[in-house]
Structures are given as structure tokens and as C-alpha cells.
């Protein structure tokens, strides 16, 4: 089986090369299901993500996995070779909180996902209590709703992101988040871990006509849901052992799904951005005895030690607080707000120092450019670049429970890689190649579309030679 595949690959290489040369477009390695499956990036600087850096080495990719990595490794004859001279190979970046693949479509999903998704409406079904399961759809799985034509998938991938945690939006239990790799033919190819985490929001949904309409009501509701799922986990085996003696159990999708998630130690994401919310979430995680990960984390600088003591990881939102663009310029600003906006980017450094494991998420930032800009702020505020890389790679993978298969450049890991022409956190650095599950994407600067002729377009020719150079570097 393995052997037969190799033959096909060799043919595909030839065909692929022709197409690539003729089309001159970004070449998707398995675009038609038959791309090359063997690659070697040679003579490149390799930052493995786990602390080791190989100044000049080779990464061999075979059938979607990293087959070998090191200074002296044998390159299989069937591999496509990329000359990595002057290039750096990093593990593919992981964005641990986005709706990539779940683009918002107004009103298109309301009915299919139950009352949970709808914002509180003055008419129709209104929750009268926890038993009505308001804004609750934990059975939804992002994997099942992936839209692979989401343009942002390509944008993120071109920036070096190979993986995201895609989180459904809306509601207290909006549904389960999925770890996806950003390439594939069909949505199923994207999915790494379908039911990766169960996100919770404490945002009340009602407006005094629907339960819950307050933060405390929302927390009380979540508590009741955990009570109920614990009850189900306890009651179900008793019932099954006594079906002729006991009244049958009512069917409640929510408690059954969550009971299963808890049994499988599924990660539960709790919202916690400021210090008060973080300490509250730590307390609730204890009380509910759940496998919690916090998300938000932007005031971590105040309570890093408390988080470290609980050994609970944090997903840090890179959407640093800013003054609202439409804010009244004359409006009084509180010192507390100003301090928060000033210090939020120092949270990652504080978390790192305290020994808290954390990862980054774009949290609504609309471009990868903004992500890097905002990571830079964290680095400027004291976060070691190494730690920043870990947060985007190894630590992200481990927090998501996928550390055994991704997050670093090591033999056997999924071949998610980014190849750059410089240091990851240098603004001038360009991503040259990205591998997702061993699928090769060459990244080229697209000529600006709809852009008037200004100095930027004048710059364009200068990128031309580099482009052809890297093309020339691909071959056998």
C-alpha cells in the first residue's frame, strides 16, 4: 500500500510541477486529492518549538507526518526538495480561539440550532428557568458546521497558521469547539479533534423577560446544568440495572452530552478576562470539579500566581483592550481602564513568569497582521520570543490535548510547518511556505488587488526575483 502510493506520488510530482510552472499560482499540494506526499526542506534553520534550534538541518515530510528532522537526515528519493537556505522552519501556528470556518451568516442558523442561538426576542419561546435550557446547545459540534470556503482560512494559513480551535458562537453553551487544520478537500479532512473543548459563556441572554438575565443568574444556570449532568451520570447506571423496578429517565440532551463530556474529561472553557473574573472562574472550576481552561486572561498580570497555584491553563485573547473607536473624546476615562489598557499586553509575560501554561487566540481580530502586531506588544512588554512561540505551538497543542500529535517539529508529529525568511516576530519577515498535514502551500505576495498605483505597487517588482528563486528551489 505504501509502495503503490509512492509510484503515484512520483507521477503526481511531474504533473504537479508542470501545472505549477504553467499556472504560476499558489499550488495546493493535494488540490485534486493526488498531490505529492513527500517533501524535504533542506539546509534550513529549524526551530523545533521545544527549545532546540538546528542551525542547518532538514525536515522530511511523509504522508502528512514529520518523518525525520535533524542536521543529518536521509532524504527519501521521492521527496520534493525545498532549498531552505536562508529560511527558517517553525511549527505551524495554532490560534486557539476563533470562528474560522464558521462565518457568521445572519439568520441562517437560528432554527437549526434551537432556541439557544437566538438572541432574546420579545416574542416566541422564552426560558422560564433552567429547565428550559436557555441558549444551550452543547451537542452542536463546530466540526459538523465547518464552511471550508471561509476566505479567512486561506488568510490565516498564508500567515503561518496551520491549526485553529474553532469555537461556535452565541449562547451560554454555544456548542463544542473543534481543532481544525487549515487545509483539506472536504470539511472532514480539516478536523483534528471534533469535540475538543466545551466553551461556556457567562453572558446573560435575557432582558428581564427571559432566564437568565443577569450574570449571577447565568452562573446559577451553569451550576444547575452541571448538577443535572452529574445526576444523570449517577442515575443512568442505576436505572439500567433496574429497568423493571424504576421509572425510566426523561431524555435531556444537554445533561447527557455534558455528562459524556465530563466522563471523557473534556476541556471546559470558562470566560475570565479581568482579575475578578479570573479568580471567580478559578473558584467555580474548583467547585464544579471540571477540567477547566480559562479564556480571556488579559488581566493575568494581577493574578498570575493564583492561576499558577491552580495549574489551570489560560487562552489569552490577543485583542488587547482599546479605547472604543467611536468613544467621545471628551468622556472621562477612569484610571483603572487606562491602566488595564496599558498593562494588558504584559499579561503573557506575567503568566510565563508565574509558570502558567497559556496559548494565544485571535479573539475577533480580523487579520493575522493584527495578531502579530499584538503579539509584538506582548513581547515588548517582556514576553520572551521563545515563550511567545511556545504559546502559539507546543503549549497550545498541549492545552488542547493534542500535544501528542502536533505543536512541534519532531518525528511523528503532524507535518504542520511554516517556513519563513526570517525571525517569526520580526515585522519584515515573510512566510514562504506552509505545510498543513503535509500539504504544501507556497506563499506568494499577491499583487495588490484594486489598489491604485502608489508607492506600494512600485515596490512589487522587488519581490519578483525572490519569488522565482523559491520556485527554482523546488524540485528534485
Amino acid at each position, binding site marked *: 500500500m505504501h509502495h503503490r502510493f509512492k509510484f503515484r506520488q512520483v507521477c503526481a510530482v511531474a504533473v504537479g510541477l508542470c501545472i505549477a510552472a504553467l499556472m504560476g499560482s499558489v499550488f495546493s499540494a493535494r488540490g485534486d486529492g493526488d498531490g505529492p506526499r513527500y517533501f524535504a526542506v533542506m539546509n534550513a534553520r529549524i526551530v523545533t518549538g521545544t527549545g532546540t534550534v538546528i542551525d542547518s538541518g532538514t525536515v522530511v515530510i511523509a504522508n502528512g507526518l514529520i518523518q525525520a528532522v535533524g542536521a543529518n537526515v536521509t532524504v527519501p528519493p521521492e521527496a520534493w526538495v525545498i532549498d531552505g537556505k536562508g529560511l527558517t522552519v517553525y511549527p505551524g501556528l495554532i490560534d486557539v480561539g476563533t470562528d474560522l470556518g464558521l462565518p457568521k451568516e445572519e439568520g441562517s442558523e437560528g432554527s437549526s440550532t434551537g432556541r439557544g442561538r437566538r438572541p432574546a426576542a420579545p416574542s416566541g419561546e422564552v426560558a422560564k428557568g*433552567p429547565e428550559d435550557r436557555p441558549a444551550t446547545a452543547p451537542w452542536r459540534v463546530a466540526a459538523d458546521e465547518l464552511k471550508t470556503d471561509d476566505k479567512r482560512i486561506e488568510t490565516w494559513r498564508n500567515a503561518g497558521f496551520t491549526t485553529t480551535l474553532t469555537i461556535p458562537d452565541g449562547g451560554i453553551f454555544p456548542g463544542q469547539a473543534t481543532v481544525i487544520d487549515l487545509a483539506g478537500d472536504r470539511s472532514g479532512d480539516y478536523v483534528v479533534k471534533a469535540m475538543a473543548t466545551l466553551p461556556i459563556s457567562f453572558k446573560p441572554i435575557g432582558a*428581564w*423577560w427571559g432566564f437568565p438575565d443577569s450574570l449571577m443568574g447565568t452562573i446559577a444556570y451553569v451550576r*444547575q446544568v452541571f*448538577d443535572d449532568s452529574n445526576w444523570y451520570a449517577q442515575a443512568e447506571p442505576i436505572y439500567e440495572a*433496574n429497568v423493571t423496578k424504576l421509572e425510566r429517565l426523561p431524555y435531556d440532551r444537554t445533561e447527557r452530552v455534558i455528562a459524556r463530556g465530563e466522563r471523557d474529561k473534556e476541556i471546559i472553557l470558562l470566560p475570565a478576562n479581568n482579575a475578578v473574573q479570573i479568580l*471567580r472562574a478559578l473558584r467555580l472550576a474548583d467547585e464544579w470539579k471540571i477540567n477547566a481552561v480559562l479564556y480571556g486572561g488579559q488581566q493575568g498580570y494581577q493574578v498570575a500566581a493564583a492561576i499558577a497555584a491552580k495549574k489551570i491553563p489560560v487562552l489569552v485573547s490577543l485583542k488587547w483592550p482599546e*479605547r472604543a473607536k467611536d468613544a467621545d473624546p471628551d468622556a472621562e476615562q477612569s484610571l*483603572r481602564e487606562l491602566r488595564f489598557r*496599558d498593562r494588558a499586553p504584559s499579561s503573557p509575560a506575567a503568566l510565563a513568569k508565574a509558570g502558567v501554561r497559556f496559548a494565544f487566540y485571535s479573539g475577533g481580530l480580523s487579520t493575522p497582521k493584527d495578531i502579530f502586531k499584538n503579539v509584538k506588544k506582548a513581547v515588548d512588554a517582556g514576553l520572551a520570543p521563545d515563550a511567545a512561540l511556545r504559546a502559539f505551538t507546543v503549549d497550545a497543542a498541549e492545552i488542547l490535548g493534542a500535544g501528542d500529535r502536533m505543536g512541534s517539529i519532531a518525528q511523528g508529529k503532524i507535518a504542520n510547518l511554516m517556513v519563513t525568511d526570517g525571525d517569526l516576530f520580526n515585522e519584515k519577515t515573510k512566510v514562504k511556505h506552509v505545510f498543513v498535514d503535509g500539504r504544501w502551500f507556497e506563499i506568494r505576495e499577491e499583487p495588490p488587488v484594486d489598489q491604485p498605483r502608489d508607492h506600494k505597487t512600485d515596490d512589487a517588482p522587488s519581490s519578483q526575483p525572490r519569488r522565482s528563486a523559491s520556485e527554482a528551489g523546488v524540485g528534485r
Partner: protein
Amino acid sequence: MKFRILLALLLIVTLRPDCVRAQSSGAPANNPILIQNATILTITHGNIEHGSILIRDGKIAAVGTDAKAPDGATVIDARGQYVMPGIIDCHSHIAVDGSVNEGSVSVSSMANIADVLNPDDISIYDDLSGGVTTANILHGSANPIGGQTIVIKLRWGKPASELPFQGAFPGIKFALGENPKRSNFTLPPGVEARYPATRMGVEETIREAFIEARQYKKQRDDYNRKKAAGDQNLLPPRRNEKLEPLVEVMEGKRYVHAHCYRADEILMLLRVANEFGFKVRTFQHVLEGYKIADEIAASGAGGSTFSDWWAYKMEAFDAIPYNATLMTERGVVVSVNSDDAEEARHLNQEAAKSMKYGGLSANDALKLVTLNPAIQLGIDNRVGSIEVGKDADLAIFNRNPLSVYAVVQKTLIDGEIYFDRDKDIAARPALEKEKQDLLAKEKKASEEKKASEKPEANPGKKPDQKKKRPPSVENGAAAVVGGGR
């Protein structure tokens, strides 16, 4: 003079520090403190002129005229000043994240204030500046049975987990009358009104909830009994977050604080409580309490009222400012509460009003905001008076606190200084500078950002954007707005 006080208050409002954490670490709790040369209003043992209070390990170690400072003690010279027990606000909604009402349902007892304590609420600090040290944080009055409540100490700068008054009973809010029946609310069109809409409905809602809670308790007790007898094939009862606190009420493990106005509804709740075997701990507001003071006194409930608010809604038309005095005279334990973050800053004055209305003695007036609310909250063994062994929760005023000119100088909780007027004033310039620096830093960053983005914009090709910035119009509008102020 009055103007000056007003100015001072205004200054506190506008220049209040957003985060004066440094102050809370003023004196470590284990370092002895001696407050000397003060007029001490002990509440329980009269007033002591030129008195001193020794504080050790957060407790009052000695009170009298001859307490001496031990080695290493911090001495607070309060010459000409007055020390009273820290003020206790029996009805407060400060330090809460999000809404204080879970108003969507008639019975919201699953909601718990303890879950949403917000130690960063500036009202905590404001209230400290009014000498308040303890507050009963209540759920709102939107429901016949509201959420669970908690007594806190105003330990500004400490995390939420350190606010609760350890050992104080948890409570639950009930509400009668116009608020729970939604008399004064306008619902958006198309929204179904919530039950109940009448006082009868309020009673029915409470009774129904307790009937449900009684069944719930029975089910649980039955299960435990059968399980103890060895039956392993039983389905466990579900835990119900709404009914648990009601069971605790019936078991005497949770206080009922009932918002109420009219005499008839107060008597109604006493009958319902009697039926289900629980006590109402306090009637809150209880504006017509003076009409049925004997009945309230006989029930053992306290009355926590306003000093002089009336006629702001139909059910407040029979309210009179003599209420506190009249109830006191009939043997009700009465407190005066704020129900409001601002009002809480001058509860000493609110208490003083009962000297004018009904002629309460000075000491009895002070009791309204110290010992009496402590009794009502079941914490009078710890706070509410200046006695040896009690918590060193104290407010130091520059004058007799019953004077409108009295201003708090220092507020202590557990022997720790949480508000110090001099330090507050001294810290303002630095805080203001920090603020201006941060503003300047932000401004600079945003200008740099603009400058770096500008070359990308092409004014020739983007007429739309240009249209959005017609300087003349916007500046004109801004000028009008500015002029309006």
C-alpha cells in the same frame, strides 16, 4: 461652611482614586494600634472622653482612658475626634458584577450574590469614606423570592474571596408589593407580563415555592433514609439550585430579608412564614412598619428602614420619617439602611434624622447604623459596638458623627486602615499624574499609528473616506456640544 463640605464631597467624587490598593496595606493587622485622645462612642457602654482604644490582632484589646501603647504600636492621635463602631449597612447593592436582579423569573433563589462579588467596585471605597465597614449585599426586589445574599466587610483591595463576613449567616431576598408584581415597569410591546401581577399573586408565588421546597426536602430525606437502610437501587433525587436555599430557610440556616412597604403585605408574609415554620429575619424598607410595630416585634423580626424617603411611589405614600423611632419605641430592633451606594456614605446623618423625627436619643440614633443592624444580621457578637474582644471595625470622624459637618478621617476593619482621608488626599496628585501620563502615552501611540497608516490611504482613489472627514462640519458640531456644557 456647608459649601465647603459640599466641595469636599464633590472632590471625593471627582478625584476618587480608582485603585488605592496601597492604602489597604497601611498597617498590618498584627501590628498593635492605639487610637488615643478620642471621644469614643461605644454604643453599649456610653461615651468616653479622652479615651483610647488598643487594637491587637484585628480585635479590640482595650477600651478606656488609660490604655497604653505597647512597643511597636502604631499610634493614631485622634485629639478632638470621635470614634464610633464601623457603620453597618443592612441593605446594600454595591460590589456586585452585573445586574443585582435576576428578574426573569418570579423565584430566582438559584441566583447568588456570592458568585458575583466585585471587589473592584469603587462604591466599596466610597462607602469606606463614609465610615461603613460592613454591608448586607442583597439581590434586587424584582421577584417575590429573589436571590441569595451575603454579608461582606468592605476590605477594599482584597479579592472577592476575602470580602465575606466570615461566620455571618447567608441570607435570601424576598420582595413584596409593587416591585415583584411589576407595577412600575413598562414592558416592550409583545412581551408577556411575568406572573404575579397582584399582591395576592405574590403571596401565592411564595407559598407555591415553599410547598415545592417542602416536597423536595421530603424526597431527599426519603432517599437518604432508604439508602441508609441499605436499598442500593434507588434513583438519587436531583439537586435543585432554586429550592436548596428555601430548604435552608425552613431549616433555619438562612435569613430572610424581605423587601416590603405596606402593613397588609408584611402581615401576609408573617402568616406565610408561620405556615412553613420559618422566621423573617428582617423586613427591609418596611415603610408602614409603624402601623404594625407590635406584630413585627412579636415575630422577632427586625425592621430596616429609610430615614425620610416617602411618596416616591403609590405604596410609599403612607411612609413617615417617624417610622424608625416609632418602631423602636414598640420594641422592634430597627436599623436605617442606604439601599444606595451614595446614601451609604452618610448613614451617620441618616441615623441622626431620627433624633429630629421622634426624638430618639443620640445613642439610640447611632444604634440604627451600628449595633442594631449587627443584631439583625446575627453578627452583634463581633461588631456593632466598641467593646473588648470585638472586631476592630471603627470609623473616626472629625466631629460628632451625628453632625452634618462630620467627615470621616479614617476607617478601620479588623484593625487595618482601609480609608485614610489624609493619605487619600495626598495620593491624588500622583494618581492624577499617572492618569495624565497614561492618556498622553495612548495619544502618542494612536498618533504614531495614524502616521504609519496614512501612506497606505490614497486620497485620490478613496473619495468616500474623504467625505467622512469634513473638518468644518465635525468641528462645528463639537463646538456646539462643547458650548452646551
